[in-house]
Structures are given as structure tokens and as C-alpha cells.
């Protein structure tokens, strides 16, 4: 068996029948469409790319400032789904991404009504994308996605409506800002979801004590970074134990150790979010470090450890 082949078996994972060279996927909204990172390294090393959250119509997003810092452990953003709209994405961003990336393309979609989600996903169904990541958890838009992500019924409604118009695997991206993540995950599973992605950002706030005002113009925003990792890990583990869907684990992952921990909790793939913004090389560095770390931990194949803490 060639080293290349051995390395493949070692890091390779499957999402709904799609093979990813490794479980590392930059999270939507922290990687644009890859252009800025492609200037720094060959992004083909990535298992997948979840592109910038796309909506039916173009959006400018929220007023500035949109970013607040949280010590050394995270940040808050209230970008508000700035994007050029799905038609523009299909006409320009997606072809450009395809031209320099041949891995798994995860299309992240947001909406303000079930009809929004349906129309956007239907248009992307004919495009060269591999997975639809349906974001029902954006905390930064009024009566936006998050409302759908905080009730099992609404989450199920969006799931079923999207499934009806696409043949692509549908992964629902869930909000952590809920009492019972398991109930929402089960509702998505029952409505036909092919997989789940969790967690999105945690609704948070910071205040500028000198100006005596919220730091971000939107008052609240999505808290991400290392500080949400313990919460993300718990929710991924709860959902992995309660459903049989593949999970893309997300939330505060910033090292190869975090990736292993997230997979042991139950994730099949792992998204890297805020860490991309502070160290643009982090996704590549994690992929390069994984084989060595796996040897230290006596892990032969990553697929061997998915949800291993749940095998009693």
C-alpha cells in the first residue's frame, strides 16, 4: 500500500457517500469563497469548503462596527449575511471556486422565509456543489434564520421544504441558543435531513466601558472562538447520542487536538471558524499536524474514533 494511499485511509472521511480527503472544512463566513486564502496556500489540501452564507437576494448586512473582541478566547460578529445573492454566486463566485478547488463544496444557505430557502436551494440544486448546508441559526438578522433554528416544528418545516426541491445531501446548521438541541436535531432527522452541522455562534454582547455603548452597532452578535468549544462539544455529543445522522462539528475548534476531541464526541467532519480569521494558515496547519498527533494518540484511522466516547 503506497504512503499516499495509507495517508488517504488515515485522514479520509465520508459525508453522505461523499469522500473527503480529511475532515477539515473552513466554516461559512470565515473563509469567503477561498480567494484570500488561495493567495497563501493551495486550498486543495482542505477536505471541504463551506462558502459564505448565501441568500436569495443580495444583502449589504448590518451597520458598522460589526466586530467585537472577547479577551484572548473569542470574538463577536454581527455581519448580517452580507452576500451578493445566489444568482451572482452561481454566475461568478462558484465557477471561480470550482476553477481552483476540486474538493467537497458545501453551499451554505440562509433565508428569511421557507420560500427563501426553497428558491435558493432549488437554484443551487443544478450547480456543482456537493452538500447543502441550510443555516437556520444566524443570530444576526432580524426574524432571520435563527427563528427557524429555535423551534423543532419550524426546523422540520424548512428541512422538509428544502428536501423536496433538491437531490443534494441536506445538512441543517443548528443554533446553540436553545434549551433542547436534541429535540431540534431529532425534528430535522424526522423531516429527512441527511446530516447536521453544529454549532453556529452563541448570541453574545460586549460593551465599550469608555464609550458606555455596546461595541457592535447591532448590540448583540454571534460569539465564536475557543470560548464556545466546551458548549459545542457538549451539544455535538448530545446530538450524536440521540440521532443517527452524520454531524459536522463546529465551534471554537482551533487545533488538531480540538479536531480529535470533536470527532471523539461524535463529529464525522469538523469546521474551523473564527480561528481562520486570526491565523489564515490554521486550516492547513491542522491538516499537516493531524497524522503526527494521531500517531502520538495511537489512532490508525480517523474513522475509528468518531463518537468513541459514546460506545459504552
Amino acid at each position, binding site marked *: 500500500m503506497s504512503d499516499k494511499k495509507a495517508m488517504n485511509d488515515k485522514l479520509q472521511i465520508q459525508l453522505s457517500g461523499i469522500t473527503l480527503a480529511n475532515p477539515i472544512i473552513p466554516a461559512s463566513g470565515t473563509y469567503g469563497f477561498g*480567494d484570500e486564502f488561495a493567495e497563501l496556500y493551495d486550498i486543495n489540501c482542505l477536505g471541504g469548503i463551506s462558502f459564505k452564507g448565501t441568500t436569495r437576494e443580495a444583502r449589504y448586512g448590518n451597520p458598522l462596527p*460589526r*466586530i467585537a473582541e472577547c479577551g484572548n478566547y473569542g470574538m463577536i460578529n454581527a455581519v448580517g449575511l*452580507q452576500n451578493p445573492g445566489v444568482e451572482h454566486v452561481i454566475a461568478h463566485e462558484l465557477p471561480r471556486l470550482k476553477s481552483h478547488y476540486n474538493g467537497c463544496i458545501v453551499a451554505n444557505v440562509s433565508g428569511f422565509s421557507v420560500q427563501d430557502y426553497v428558491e435558493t436551494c432549488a437554484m443551487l440544486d443544478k450547480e456543482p456543489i456537493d452538500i447543502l448546508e441550510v443555516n437556520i441559526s444566524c443570530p444576526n438578522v432580524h426574524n432571520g434564520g435563527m427563528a427557524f433554528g429555535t423551534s423543532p416544528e419550524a426546523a422540520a418545516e424548512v428541512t422538509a421544504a428544502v428536501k423536496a426541491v433538491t437531490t443534494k445531501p441536506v445538512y441543517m446548521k443548528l443554533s446553540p441558543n436553545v434549551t433542547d438541541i436534541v429535540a431540534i436535531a431529532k425534528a430535522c432527522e424526522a423531516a429527512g435531513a441527511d446530516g447536521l452541522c453544529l454549532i453556529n455562534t452563541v448570541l453574545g454582547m460586549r460593551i465599550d466601558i469608555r464609550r458606555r455603548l455596546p461595541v457592535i452597532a447591532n448590540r448583540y452578535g454571534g460569539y465564536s472562538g475557543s470560548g464556545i468549544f466546551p458548549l459545542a462539544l457538549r451539544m455535538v455529543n448530545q446530538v450524536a447520542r440521540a440521532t443517527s445522522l452524520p454531524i459536522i462539528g463546529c465551534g471554537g475548534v482551533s487545533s488538531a487536538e480540538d479536531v480529535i476531541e470533536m470527532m471523539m464526541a461524535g463529529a464525522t467532519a469538523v469546521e474551523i471558524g473564527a480561528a481562520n480569521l486570526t491565523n489564515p494558515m490554521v486550516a492547513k496547519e491542522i491538516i499537516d499536524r493531524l497524522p503526527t498527533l494521531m500517531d502520538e494518540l495511537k489512532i490508525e484511522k480517523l474513522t475509528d474514533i468518531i463518537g468513541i466516547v459514546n460506545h459504552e
Partner: protein
Amino acid sequence: MRLAGDTNEILPGQFVNIRIEGLFLRRPISVCDAQEGLLTIIYKVVGVGTESMTHLLAGQKVDMLTVLGTGYNIANAGENPLLVGGGVGVPPMYMLARQLREAGKAVRVILGFNTKDEVFYEEEFRTLGCDVTVTTVDGSHGVKGFVTNALDGQQSYYYTCGPLPMIKALLQAAGTHGEVSMEERMGCGFGACMGCTIQTTQGPKRVCKEGPVFDAAILQF
């Protein structure tokens, strides 16, 4: 602060993004000058980030992203360009002035401050051979008032960087035949997070990528 490293390709008006121990986000600082492997930045202590930068020791290694953003385009200068810097907006004018002088232009510089104690780099610009006017709000040094009080309307083109009120006043008085460096709170500083996007007449633009320097004609206030 002066740093040694690769300074090729760094253009006037661009910025660097510095990682600071104990803080999550990097801190963007505009380039004051960059040549022959030496990078000069001048910063004012305004918060925890710039405060902890003062604890950096001589010889210490710094994790920094460089060649960030779109700088000034000296090709637009014409024969007698005007450079207007206000407070913390003064440093980026220096590298620009140096390159314009090297290109043989007659460079006029207006530097605006609140008061005499805040004035810096006046001599450095003179040494470059620029025609320098300093304005102070309280009149304690140079012309009393704002940078707009020192305009003569004779420039072929202008380049500016400074606080928003100054920039608005300048556009009012001098029109839009020039380039403006904008400042916004950033997330990544290299175009990925959309944290610093402003609206322009040509649609949304990222201050950290399409900017910080913009054609004055497309700005909206």
C-alpha cells in the same frame, strides 16, 4: 516602532496586522514607511491592544501580516499633489510623500492636530523637501483651526488620511478629486470576514481589501 523583515511590495497607504499575546484579534496599523527591509509604524495608545504593544521589547519577534489592503495610487498625483494628514492619519502620508518626491513632484503637506504637544513628523516631511503647513485647533502651533483652513485649492490631486469629521470637511472644501484612507474596526484584516464593509456608490467595499484607500468620488457619508 521599527521592524526588520521583507518590505518588498509594501505600498504607501497599506497596513500591517499584528498579533498581540493575550488578545484574540490582530491589530491593524498603517504603514508609516517601508524600505530596504525596515518597516516603520507609528501608533497611538488607545486601548488594550496598542497598550500592550508598548510592552514589546527591542529585538522581539512579532507575528504580523503585511502587504494588506489597497494603498494610494501615486500615478494619479499630477504635478503638485496635496497630502492631508490628521492626527493618527499623519504616518501613512510619510511613505507617500517620500515616493512622490522621488518621482520629482512638488508635494504640499498639511498636517492637522488638536494642539502643539500632539504635533509630530513636521520636520521629517520638510526633510523630504515638502512644503509643510501645520494646523492646530487651538492655534498653539502653525495655522489656527482645521486642515481646511490651510487649503489653497491649487493642488493637482489630493491624498488624505484622518478622522472622519476631517475627511468630510475636506471633501466639502476640496471636492472629490483625490484618494481617502478610511478606518473601520476589522475582524481578519485580509478580506475574509466582511467585518469592515462600507457602502459606496459602487456597492459594498471591504475597507481591509478594496480599501483602506478609496477614490473620494465613490464614498458615501
